[in-house]
């Protein structure tokens, strides 16, 4: 019995940090409507800075002073980030905001290694809380007891801050309707900056307080951000009390899940999240997200199928690509195969995002599941390659069917966070379930059969499949299904009013995209000859997002172009520099701020500018309005 009580208390102690970070994310979202992906990065910097400071200043005052000073210093960094970057993208689509803050996260990961080195750092114990308390023969670290008390105290302080101060009233008002608050003459800029600073302070404090418990390392940002996303999805984005309750819930589930499913404890959290989402889609304490006021003047060129000339040009490009083995070496062919596979991956996500309006932040899960599907079939069942290639993607299909069912219950940022959490769950299973997946060691020796083994043959195979998939998805875009799907994206209200089952359309699109990604993954397994948990990791999911955005999310061909340019650039970059994450992160931030329409979008704009001498609005005004009779 005592053991379970101790386990419970450990869970409560873990909840403290999680609550601090999650409440910061919630506060920032409430006012600025930005889901700050970089929140985990601020948490990590908080831990690193606190480590450095506590090493230098010892003693009780030195330690606790360092913790607070670290949080304040990181909050200052947050202010700079807000003023330099976020102010430029408050009116961008939410997807761009998530991506920009993700780009920041990538940059921070490399910077942290550059400054503090790649090794884990073990911090000092907290003065005054070094020992343990005996509880019926079980030890509880006294620092855990401190954290257990701290959580509710911070909750109380936040409550006072929001209920009893003028600033708190403004923040609550802005959470309800920020346009109205601005119309009342409140200086919105400084309100946003101060809210961001408070949110970042909480994240950094959460990180700093972790150092007596856990080693500081450069991957702690992604681990915490996924847990925080799960917490805010369960608790309700924008609710502080929700963040508290959900943080306790998730921490306890983790603490006891280890006892029930030692190998795949994360499953338990997932099941609870799934139940919450079915019963209360906006979280336990959340409210449905009010639709944002639409930016006026936002027109998109209606899509059209390729003209016959453009079709010929695309065919010619394919033929030229197919001649690559005639003059290129083996390395170039392997790179070519990889690009072709990533075209499949990007096109599948593009279908979901551009046509369905569903920005998945965990699309790599289905790519990776396709790869694992092939590995299982080839290594365990010993099936021939062609059968594996046909059946392997079905694992991606099944994963997409299960997770997609839950994900499409939500929309917007909730959808993005949920898909990310699902992908991370799949990653954890691949990582933890060593007996089946090989864990970190992966599954090796997935080699293609003789007919596809040579680089040129494999290249032709990958190119052919990529072309088929691209054509099939393009047909789907212009099929009745594609139009129905776009209808759900443009106006869910109108779609339901003309008999469209919005959720089922979206679910179908999710399964199509997931299966297609699985086809890419299946080929990828054979290209690499092995499968690792990284094949379904977050960074791969983000690669896909960047490819789609780089190509242009409002265009039909964005996926293909984006994949080719990005993958070629990426492979080249990795061969040139050790700081690829830093460069890549900077690149992502740059795309979001400078080229939000992507390559294809820009080309279309240029072509249109050349074609029309008068702006499109002019012709409409010049024509007489016809009468109704």
């Amino acid at each position: 019995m005592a053991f379970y009580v101790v386990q419970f208390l450990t869970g409560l102690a873990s909840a403290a940090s999680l609550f601090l970070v999650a409440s910061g994310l919630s506060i920032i979202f409430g006012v600025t409507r930005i889901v700050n992906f970089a929140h985990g990065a601020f948490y990590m910097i908080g831990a690193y800075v606190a480590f450095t400071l506590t090493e230098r200043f010892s003693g009780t005052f030195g330690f606790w002073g360092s913790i607070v000073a670290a949080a304040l210093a990181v909050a200052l960094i947050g202010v700079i980030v807000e003023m330099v970057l976020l102010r430029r993208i408050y009116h961008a689509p939410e997807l761009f905001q998530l991506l920009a803050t993700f780009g920041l996260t990538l940059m921070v990961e490399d910077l942290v290694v550059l400054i503090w080195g790649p090794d884990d750092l073990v911090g000092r114990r907290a003065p005054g809380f070094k020992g343990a308390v005996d509880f019926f023969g079980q030890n509880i670290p006294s620092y855990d007891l401190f954290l257990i008390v701290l959580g509710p105290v911070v909750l109380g302080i936040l409550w006072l801050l929001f209920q009893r101060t003028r600033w708190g009233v403004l923040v609550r008002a802005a959470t309800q309707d920020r346009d109205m608050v601005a119309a009342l003459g409140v200086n919105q800029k400084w309100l946003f900056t101060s809210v961001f600073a408070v949110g970042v302070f909480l994240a950094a404090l959460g990180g700093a307080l972790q150092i007596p418990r856990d080693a500081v390392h450069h991957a702690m940002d992604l681990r915490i951000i996924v847990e925080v996303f799960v917490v805010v999805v369960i608790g309700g984005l924008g609710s502080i009390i929700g963040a508290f309750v959900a943080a306790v819930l998730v921490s306890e589930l983790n603490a006891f899940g280890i006892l029930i499913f030692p190998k795949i404890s994360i499953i338990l959290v997932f099941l609870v999240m799934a139940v919450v989402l079915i019963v209360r889609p906006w979280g336990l304490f959340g409210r449905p997200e009010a639709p944002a006021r639409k930016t006026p003047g936002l027109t998109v060129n209606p899509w059209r199928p390729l003209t016959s000339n453009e079709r010929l040009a695309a065919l010619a490009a394919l033929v030229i690509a197919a001649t690559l083995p005639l003059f290129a070496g083996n390395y170039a062919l392997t790179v070519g195969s990889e690009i072709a596979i990533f075209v499949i991956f990007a096109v599948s996500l593009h279908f979901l995002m551009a046509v369905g309006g569903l920005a998945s932040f965990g699309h790599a899960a289905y790519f990776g599941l396709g790869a694992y599907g092939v590995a299982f079939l080839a290594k365990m069942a010993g099936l021939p390659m062609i059968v594996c290639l046909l059946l392997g993607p079905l694992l991606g299909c099944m994963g997409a069917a299960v997770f997609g069912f839950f994900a499409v219950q939500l929309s917007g940022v909730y959808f993005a966070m949920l898909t990310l959490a699902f992908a991370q769950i799949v990653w954890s299973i691949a990582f933890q379930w060593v007996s089946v997946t090989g864990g970190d060691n992966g599954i090796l020796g997935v080699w293609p059969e003789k007919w596809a083994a040579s680089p040129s043959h494999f290249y032709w195979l990958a190119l052919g499949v990529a072309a088929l998939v691209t054509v099939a998805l393009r047909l789907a875009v212009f099929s009745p299904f594609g139009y129905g799907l776009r209808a759900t994206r443009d106006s869910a209200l109108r779609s339901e009013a003309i008999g469209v089952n919005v959720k089922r359309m979206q679910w179908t699109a999710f399964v199509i995209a997931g299966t297609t990604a699985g086809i890419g993954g299946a080929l990828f397994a054979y290209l690499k000859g092995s499968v690792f948990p990284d094949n379904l990791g977050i960074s791969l999911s983000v690669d896909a997002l960047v490819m789609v955005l780089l190509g242009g999310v409002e265009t039909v061909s964005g996926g293909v172009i984006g994949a080719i340019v990005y993958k070629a650039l990426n492979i080249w970059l990795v061969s040139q520099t050790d700081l690829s994450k830093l460069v890549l992160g900077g690149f992502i931030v740059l795309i979001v701020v400078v080229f939000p329409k992507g390559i294809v979008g820009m080309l279309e704009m240029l072509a249109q500018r050349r074609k029309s001498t008068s702006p499109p609005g002019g012709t409409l005004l010049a024509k007489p309005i016809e009468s109704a009779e």
Partner: protein
Amino acid sequence: MSVAPPLLVVEGLTKSYGGIHAVRGVSFSLRAGEILALIGPNGAGKSTCFDMLNGQNRPDTGHVRLLGEDTTGKKPREIWRLGVGRTFQITATFATMTVRENVQVALISHGKQLFNLWGSTPSFDRGEAGRLLELVGMGGYADRPCGELAYGDLKRLELAVALANQPKLLLMDEPTAGMAPRERVDLMRLTAQIAREKSIGVLFTEHDMDVVFEHADRIIVLNRGTLIAEGSPAEVRGNPQVQAVYLGEGLVYDSRHREGAPA
């Protein structure tokens, strides 16, 4: 007009939010080809009532019967499948598509082709979409991006979309809100003409009394959630209770205003 069997029968609809009775025991019916206006001051329960008919809100008690079938608590898309077209107070259209494509999507849904992955939409029911657009006077706009349309034209487009499933009943929530006076008259005249030709029943809510009295065959008046009057425009206009609701306080205000104001 001969007496046709009722298209829509509403019996004892009631809805409360907490202690507030938004709608209390409202009953009425609507025949094919009839144009019925639902009016009442702000907060009378029009929107609540309307949302219970189109499936966006579920009544606490009471029933809605459409063509003899009980549609109480059905989803909007299920009600649409029974032959109900609707337009919104604030237009809801597909902004990234052309005008024609907006109508084509409705036709695709009507033809149960939504899960067809292989057909080609640009040629799908193109003729029928064109006919519907001609009908509402939007034939010349078919290839325009929907996002470029003026508000009055969006309202007409909505009407074309609402007609795509050959509805027996049209539900129009404040169809002329936000339009210029000339456009209001045109749109309602067009609606009335189509409804009579195709024998479609129309139920609409409206604040503009000129529109109501000119186009409605019959009017029902809600006040504080209950139905206080029902009848022809002439009957409703002469009903003292309706006058009290609409004009009572206005007259007091008006007279005081005249006494005090210099001009």
